[in-house]
């Protein structure tokens, strides 16, 4: 596996918004059956990176390779057609639409011809149910509006959708943010399921605990630049947390916030 090029590879990629350097020389690799975690604080450039991978923005410098061939993506549709699926934190689904309509949105199967061309509703319902079941997601009713599901469940449906439509690269934007511990655990289980299904997963997060649970590679971003790149066997959770939070700063903060010692605060 080490000899051939990884499935998705970004090398020294940069992005400018006007005269603001949003991203400078960021490199990242993701291979099938692996989880690559991108960690960073707010404003580290995670969103910009995700937009480049998913085809919403074009990079200004560096190379973007899929299967070893260089590309420049023009649109999210193009990325999807190449097997790069992105699940956004807040815009993964249309809340008022039933689960099965959401599942097939943009790729609806049809039957019949001419004016009788119509949605294959029975297949859509059955496939939604079975695809979700295969990922281990149990839903009472695929007819309920997806907005009635919990945030974690919605993420899971979006992940199952990407897996079902043959995505090879799955990009997850903060899937565990705004979720409780239990819900986050459920989502991470599906991240692992997607990985086991042979997808290359890129997990964007600011939570090193979640990242360390499933990650095979870690890329740390800070103010638009790379602050580190590690394989899972090279780094411990403590070290990851320390690097991400900017260890020294965190220690100082802890010191500052400690109670009962007024002299310290000054």
């Amino acid at each position: 596996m080490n000899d051939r090029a990884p499935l998705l590879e970004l090398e020294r990629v940069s992005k400018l918004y006007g005269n603001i350097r949003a991203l400078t020389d960021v490199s990242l690799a993701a291979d099938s059956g692996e989880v690559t975690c991108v960690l960073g604080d707010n404003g580290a450039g995670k969103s910009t990176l995700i937009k480049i991978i998913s085809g919403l923005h074009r990079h200004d410098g560096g190379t973007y390779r899929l299967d070893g061939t260089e590309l420049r993506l023009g649109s999210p549709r193009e990325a999807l057609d190449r097997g790069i699926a992105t699940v956004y934190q807040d815009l993964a689904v249309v809340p008022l639409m039933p689960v099965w309509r959401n599942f097939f949105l943009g790729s609806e199967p049809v039957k019949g011809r001419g004016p009788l061309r119509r949605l294959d509703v029975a297949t859509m319902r059955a496939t939604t149910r079975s695809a979700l079941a295969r990922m281990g997601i149990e839903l009472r009713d695929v007819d309920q509006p997806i907005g009635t599901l919990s945030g974690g469940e919605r993420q899971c449906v979006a992940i199952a959708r990407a897996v079902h439509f043959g995505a090879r690269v799955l990009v997850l934007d903060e899937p565990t943010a705004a979720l409780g511990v239990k819900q986050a655990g459920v989502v991470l289980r599906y991240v692992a399921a997607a990985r086991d299904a042979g997808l290359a997963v890129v997990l964007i997060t600011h939570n090193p605990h979640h990242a360390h649970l499933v990650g095979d590679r870690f890329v740390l971003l800070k103010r638009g630049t790379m602050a580190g790149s590690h394989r899972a066997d090279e780094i411990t959770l403590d070290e990851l947390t320390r690097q991400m939070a900017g260890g020294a700063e965190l220690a100082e903060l802890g010191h500052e916030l400690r109670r009962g010692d007024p002299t310290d605060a000054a």
Partner: protein
Amino acid sequence: MTETTTAPTPPPAAGRPEGDDRLIRRSLPRRLLGRPELGAVIGAAALFVFFAIVADSFLKLGSLSTVVYASSTIGIMAVPVALLMIGGEFDLSTGVLVTFSALVSSQVSYQLTANVWVGVGVSLLVTLAVGLFNGFMLVRTKLPSFIITLGTFLMLTGINLGLTKVISGTVTTRSIGDMDGFGAARSVFAARYEVGGVSVNVTVLWWLGLLALATWILLRTRAGNWIFAVGGAPEAARAVGVPVNRTKIGLYLGVALAAWISGQHLLFSYDVIQSSEGIGNELIYIAAAVIGGCLLTGGYGSAIGAAVGAFIFGMTNKGIVFAQWDPNWFKFFLGAMLLLATLLNAWIRKRAEATP
């Protein structure tokens, strides 16, 4: 033709709470509660009973025929307006667009001394062009559709009056009643047929046809899925590859098509057009769609609901006359009903979502 359920098969047994874990279907009343048009149907039934009691002549066949005709003229527009609103957009230019479409048809035929079908054809193209303009401006400028169609509304209002005056010298068009093809066009757009002793205007067929088509599109085609999606969460829709702009432009074209049908009906019912007609009707179409369960914010609603909303308007409009009240109260009743129906819809939806 007007199917109301989204499920292909009826539930095995209504109200079986916990049987088969995954295959359980929601009970029939529960699924009905989830339908957007429920509030409108209840309202329409209540209103029907009300007018049947207070207006003696309301239940006569002739009266009901008048009510259905009034409903159909509103319904032809309310149905595509509902689709547009489900797609998350407004159109304030619909009322004057109907008049504009009729004016174009009338003026082209009269000025060219041509067969009226020439005017009808030119009118179709010009009306669709206005719809295309609305849609194209929307996706290009990204301005709210409220502003864009308010602009179109004002411009068309001016054009309707101004151009008619320039061409005809008055605010009314010349009669085209004696021109070639008038009879045929009238039979398509404004004929009355006797069905079992009841007079049925052809607009009722147009209305039901558009309703069936709109329901089919919404519930059974890819485009329908996209309409719900672009209204409910446009960014999510775009991210999964839905052609958001094309869908919205298509919706404006649908509204324009219906405006053309309405406009031709207006023209061929009589043979002249008042150029100031139609102002204010756009709000009636929107209100009918809202009473029918369409959310102002998009992503939710049904064509059937809008048709029922139009029926409510037709009943109120004529019911007030049959009850021999002052017709000026019509608008007051409409406003009150709009508020009540919207509150009822919101309440029903909350109940339906709270207990799946």
